[in-house]
C-alpha cells in the first residue's frame, strides 16, 4: 500500500536497527507516549529487536485506559436508567465500570451503539427526535475536533436531543505527571504523532526545557518508531534535550489550525480525573458554558455513588511506565480481555492488551 509499505520496509528497519545499535553506548529508558505506538512496537516484534540497553517504557497515551470508572458508570447509568441511545467508539464498550461495562448493559437491553464518527450520532439524534442521544466523547486531542464538530452540527440543526459525555484528556499534562513521579526513570520521550498533527509542536518546548528530556514527535509504523528511537538515542548520547519532529510528513509546527479552532470554539481546558493516576490540573476538555445544552453533566441529573477503582488493577503504574503488564500478578490469570480488571486489558491501545495478544510466548524476553 502506497505511503504505508515504505514505512514497513524490512531493509530500512534493519538499517535503522543497525544504526541504533552502533549509536547507543549508554542505557536508556524511552517512553512512547501513545498506546498506538505501544501496539505497533509489540505487534511488529520490535521490542525484541532493540538492543537490551534501549528499553521502551509504555506511556499513558491510551484514552480508554485513563477514563475514570465513574464516567463509565455514568454512561452505563444513562443507557440503562435514562433510556438514552448511548453511542460510543468501539474500544470503550468492553471497559469495566464498577457494576458493568457498556457491552453488558447492551446485552441487558440498553440501546448502546458502536460508531466510528460522532457525526453519525448526530444523524441518529436527527432520526430519533423522541429519544435522547448521548455520544461518549473519549479521547486525546485527536478525537476532540470531530466531537466538537458534532456539537456545532447539532446546534446548527437545532437538535435538542443530542449531548456529549465528554472525557477528553490532553497529552502534555500527562507527560508532566509521569515525569514528576519520583518512581519513573524516563530519559527520552517519543511524542504522540497524531496528537501533534492536531495540536502542533509549540506546547512541547516548555517540557523539553523544564525537564531536560528529549522529545521526538514520532509516527506509528515500524520505520517511524525506529527512526524516532534513533533520533532520541542520538540526543541522549550527545547530552542534548531538544524537541524534534520525526513525523514531519504529517505533523506541522502549528498543527491543524482549523481543527484547533473548532476545539476552542466548543471546549475549554479543565481539571480531569485520570484512571489510576488521579486528578491532573488543566489536563482535559469540558464543554464551554455556551454549549451547556449539549453537556451531559449539565443536561441530566445523575445521582450515582462515586465508586473506587478495582484495587487489584495496577493501571496507574502501568500507565506511568513504572511497571510492565507482565509484572502484574493478575496479568493473563485473573485479568484477561474476556474478564478484565481494568481498562488497559481491553482497550485496543492498552499496554496490557498488547502484551496479552502478541507476546505470551515471548513474555520473558519482553519483561526484562
Amino acid at each position, binding site marked *: 500500500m502506497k505511503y504505508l509499505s515504505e514505512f514497513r520496509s524490512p531493509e530500512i528497519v534493519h538499517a535503522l536497527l543497525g544504526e541504533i545499535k552502533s549509536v547507543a553506548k549508554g542505557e536508556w529508558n524511552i517512553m512512547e507516549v501513545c498506546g498506538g505506538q505501544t501496539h505497533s512496537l509489540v505487534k511488529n*516484534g520490535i521490542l525484541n529487536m532493540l538492543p537490551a540497553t534501549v528499553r521502551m517504557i509504555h506511556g499513558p497515551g491510551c484514552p480508554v485506559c485513563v477514563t475514570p470508572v465513574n464516567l463509565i458508570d455514568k454512561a452505563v447509568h444513562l443507557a440503562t436508567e435514562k433510556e438514552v441511545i448511548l453511542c460510543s467508539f468501539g*474500544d470503550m464498550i468492553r471497559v469495566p465500570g464498577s457494576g458493568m461495562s457498556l457491552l453488558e448493559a447492551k446485552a441487558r437491553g440498553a440501546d448502546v451503539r458502536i460508531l466510528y464518527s460522532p457525526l453519525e450520532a448526530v444523524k441518529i439524534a436527527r432520526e430519533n427526535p423522541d429519544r435522547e442521544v448521548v455520544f461518549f466523547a473519549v479521547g486525546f486531542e485527536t478525537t476532540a475536533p470531530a466531537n466538537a464538530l458534532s456539537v456545532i452540527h447539532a446546534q446548527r440543526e437545532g437538535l435538542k436531543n443530542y449531548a456529549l459525555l465528554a472525557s477528553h484528556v490532553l497529552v502534555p499534562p500527562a507527560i508532566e505527571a509521569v515525569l514528576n513521579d519520583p518512581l519513573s526513570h524516563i530519559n527520552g520521550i517519543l511524542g504522540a504523532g497524531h496528537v501533534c498533527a492536531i495540536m502542533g509542536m509549540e506546547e512541547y518546548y516548555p517540557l523539553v526545557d523544564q525537564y531536560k528530556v528529549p522529545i521526538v514527535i514520532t509516527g506509528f509504523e515500524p520505520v517511524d518508531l525506529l527512526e524516532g528511537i534513533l533520533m532520541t538515542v542520538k540526543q541522549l548520547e550527545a547530552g542534548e534535550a531538544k524537541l524534534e519532529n520525526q513525523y514531519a510528513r504529517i505533523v506541522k509546527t502549528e498543527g491543524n489550525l482549523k481543527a484547533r479552532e473548532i476545539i476552542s470554539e466548543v471546549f475549554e481546558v479543565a481539571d480531569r480525573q485520570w484512571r489510576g493516576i488521579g486528578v491532573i490540573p488543566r489536563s482535559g476538555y469540558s464543554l464551554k458554558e455556551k454549549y451547556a445544552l449539549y453537556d451531559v453533566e449539565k443536561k441530566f441529573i445523575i445521582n450515582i455513588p462515586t465508586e473506587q477503582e478495582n484495587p487489584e488493577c495496577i493501571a496507574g503504574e502501568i500507565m506511568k511506565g513504572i511497571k510492565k503488564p507482565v509484572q502484574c500478578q493478575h496479568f493473563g490469570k485473573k485479568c484477561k480481555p474476556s474478564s478484565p480488571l481494568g481498562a488497559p486489558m481491553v482497550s485496543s491501545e492498552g499496554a496490557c492488551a498488547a502484551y496479552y495478544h502478541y507476546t505470551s510466548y515471548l513474555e520473558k524476553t519482553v519483561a526484562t
Partner: protein
Amino acid sequence: MPKLDFDIITLGHGSGGTLTNQLLDSGVFKLLGNELLDKRHDGATFQLNARVAMSTDSFVVSPIFFAGGNIGDLAVNGTVNDLAMCGAIPKYLSLSFILEEGLKMEEFWEVLVAIKTACEYAGVQVITGDTKVVERGKGDKIFINTTGIGEVHPQASIDPLRVITGDKIILSGPPARHGVAIMSLRQGLEFETSITSDTRPLHKIILQLLDTFGAEIHLLRDPTRGGISTVLNEIAKYGPNGIEINEHAIHIEEEVAGACEMLGLDPLYVANEGLFIAVVHANAADAFLQQLQQWQHGAKAAIIGEVVVDHPGQVIMNSNIGGRRVINMLSGEQLPRIC
C-alpha cells in the same frame, strides 16, 4: 417472482395452515423441488453408500444482502464447505427458516433464488425443511439453519490427530473479503468499496485435491468467524505441536488491507466464506500448492507456515520486518477503535 396475494410475511405464514402452504407452494417447492422434497413428508429417507459426514450451521448475518451474495447462498455454501472440510462430497441439505413478521416477500424470494442457484452450483439437494415466523422485533428479517449430509471421499483421512511436526500450512487465497464486505454496510461504518464477499462452495477443488493427495492431506479447515488466526490457534491446540507462520506469505489484497487499516481491523481475524486452510504432509506440499494454484480462485494460494515442535499450543508469526509475535485467538468481537 410469482404473483402473490401477499407482499409481506405475516405470522400466519408460520402457522402450518393454509398460509404456510400457500407460501411453500408459491415459492420453496417450485424453486427447490426434487423427488425427495416433493413427497412433502415430515422427513426424507434415502440410501447412502459410503462413510457419512454431517454438519449443521445457522446463519444470522446482518445485513442479509451484501456485495457478492446474500444470506441464502451463504447458508448453502457454509454447510457445503463444512462438509468439504470433512473430506466429504455434499449430497443433501435440510433448510429451516425463521422469518420475522413483516419481511418483504420480494426479499424472501431473492434469498430463495440465491439458495436455488447455490444448490445447483454445488450439486446438492434440499430434501427437508421448516418455516417458522416470529413476531416483529423478535428476529432480524431472516435466520436460516442448514444441515448437510455428504459421502466421505474414499481416500480422505482428515483428522486433527494426524497433524504432525513438519506439516505445511497452506492458505487457499487472500483473506478477509467477507468480513470487510459486511462491515462496510453496517450502520456508522458505511464506506464505498468494491470489495465483495468471497462466499463460494469449496468442495469441488477439495475433492480434486483429495483425488490426487488423499491421506497426505491431514487436516482441512475453513476460517470463517474469527478468521485465519482463530483456526490456526485451534489447530495448534489439537495436538502437542506449535505453529509458525510467515507474515510475508499471506497475500492481503490492497483494497482489503486499506479497509482494514481504516477500520482498525486485523485481516487475520476477519471472517472468510470461501477460503480454506490445509495442513499437508511436507512431502506433498509443493505439488498440492501447484494444483491448488490452477483453481480459478487459487492463484494467490501459498504455503504460509508449518507445524513445529517449539511453543506447543501457540501460533507464532514472523513479522515482515523480522520480529516475532504471538497470534492469539480472537477474544470477543473485533471492535472499531478510537484512533
